[in-house]
């Protein structure tokens, strides 16, 4: 009987990505329902800190030290180690995040092991001897439950599927070394931080998003102030990104990010289908739009008809009044 593996992904400051702690929490429940062991795996140039962080959530973490994990693109290096380990240990399930690193890892791992991949899980359960995976498809119109024909495979998991909760006591860390075929090297020449990069939107519980109606880069000041006041992140439509008002990293929708915050506050956003598919599973959707017939009126919980600058300023004042 194979174990359930969580591959820890690199996070800020050589730490662990938050998504990995969420997946670790999720998989602890699966351990009980499946009767299987759960194991975390960290591949890093210096696995100390990320492995210790993952071990706060899981009983066992394999730590694989490899300088290349930092000097080269992480996913190719990690995939080769995890594939070699998987060939030896035959896990039943390998989980990673549904973001760039997790997807790159899952694709390479699938090619190397022949295991199938189920992607963008919004839930993972155990039934009839194998994992079952819920996914939201067709822009949220349908939820599918899928399984692996061989009852084993790789799953990528969306952010915010579980709330990261450390285990009662930390697990142990086992250094591991595995030999196996490597993937072609992709050198990291440099890592560049861009000034003004806003908080990541995938993990945010509250998102305040601006569209074309915001009118210009200056208009995002109000969006940012509201986000700050609500403790949320700033999102945008493609129209705002294409206009150069805000970086592409904040774009929500079909060719941007898919988010599921508890609150989505949309300012000057029409709610085009390509935007809607990225945010329509948000818990609560509030829109401010001067056009009562904008498509967003069909799927928001609350639409305030009015000028976003006027309503936004009033909202900011009232929110500040509450916290003050």
């Amino acid at each position, binding site marked *: 009987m194979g174990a359930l593996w969580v591959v820890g992904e690199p996070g800020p400051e050589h730490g662990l990505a938050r998504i990995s702690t969420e997946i670790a929490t999720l998989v602890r429940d699966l351990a009980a329902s499946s009767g299987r062991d759960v194991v975390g795996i960290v591949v890093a140039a210096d696995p100390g800190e990320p492995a210790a962080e993952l071990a706060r959530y899981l009983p066992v973490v394999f730590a694989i030290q490899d300088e290349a994990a930092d000097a080269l693109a992480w996913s190719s290096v990690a995939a080769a180690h995890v594939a070699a380990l998987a060939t030896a240990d035959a896990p039943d399930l390998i989980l990673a995040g549904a973001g760039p690193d997790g997807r790159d890892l899952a694709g*390479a791992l*699938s090619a190397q092991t022949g295991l199938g991949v189920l992607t963008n899980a919004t839930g993972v359960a155990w039934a009839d001897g194998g994992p079952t995976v819920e996914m939201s498809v067709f822009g949220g119109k349908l939820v599918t439950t899928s399984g692996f024909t061989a009852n084993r495979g790789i799953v990528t998991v969306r952010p915010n599927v579980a709330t990261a909760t450390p285990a009662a006591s930390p697990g142990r860390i086992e250094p591991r070394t595995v030999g196996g075929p490597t993937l*072609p090297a992709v050198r*990291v020449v440099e890592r560049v931080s861009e000034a003004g990069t806003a908080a990541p939107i995938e993990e945010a519980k509250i998102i305040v998003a601006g569209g074309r109606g915001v009118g210009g880069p200056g208009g995002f000041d109000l969006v940012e102030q509201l986000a700050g006041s609500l403790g949320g992140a700033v999102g945008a439509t493609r129209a705002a990104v294409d206009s150069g008002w805000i970086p592409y990293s904040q774009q929500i929708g079909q060719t941007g990010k898919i988010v599921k915050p508890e609150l989505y506050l949309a300012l000057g956003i029409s709610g085009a289908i390509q935007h809607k598919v990225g945010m329509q599973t948000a*818990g609560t959707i509030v829109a401010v739009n001067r056009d009562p017939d904008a498509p967003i009126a069909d799927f928001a919980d*609350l639409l305030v008809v009015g000028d976003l600058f006027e309503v936004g300023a009033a909202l900011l004042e009232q929110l500040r009044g509450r916290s003050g």
Partner: protein
Amino acid sequence: MRIVVLIKPVPDPASAGERLGPDGRLDRAAVPAVVNGNDEYALEAALKLVALAPEGSDVTLLSMAPASAPETLRKALAMGATRGVLVTDPALAGADAVSTARVLAAALRELEFDLALAGVDTSDGVGGTVSAAVAAHLGLPFLSYAARIEPDEAAKAVRVRRISPTGYDLLEAPMPALISCTQALGEPRYPSLKGIMAARSKEIVSRSLADLGIDQATVGGAVATTAVLGTRTPPARGATEIVRGTPAEGASRIVELLAARRLI
């Protein structure tokens, strides 16, 4: 510079009519097909790169799709690609990501290229794993989430800005390499009338599994590693409350709702 762009025809997301057939697979007949959005960014990037050094350059489209796909590929040819290769075979119906990656890798093996470009993900599957798998099969360096692509033909190397949570990572690898592409590469062009006319006579080569030396029994729906077990329609969102009034009234209603739902 010779570039291959991996193009997937997908049901038009703007039609909002996508559905699964009784077999749990995407019902491709239900909705008109378009080129996957991210693949258009990849194609646009390819067209810009070959325009820098047109001599001996070309852009080949590679698609694994039903036999009806040429209609969709014509639009991409009209944007300026040189030719298309369509891998199509009845045995590929119901192919999963594992089969898709194997077949695309086999088709790429037959082509000469400096760069192969793919989209970061697809609007129908949103898997985002196929390109990494293709690269691994072929032993190609894989540079993903590209916001900028800078090949150096003399050095036979390529640099890519990979979008990171705080900015970007500058990656470098020897060519040939496979790159997954994002919208940050730039808006795709509209086909010109001349392009549309020219596309009519451009070549689309069809390849079967046998042509690629792949045994029909080893790919496609029959050996899929994943299966849809069931579906449900998510609960519809409640009715929309519409508030008109002064800005202060609108703001108060928002605050009330957020407080009632414990969001503030």
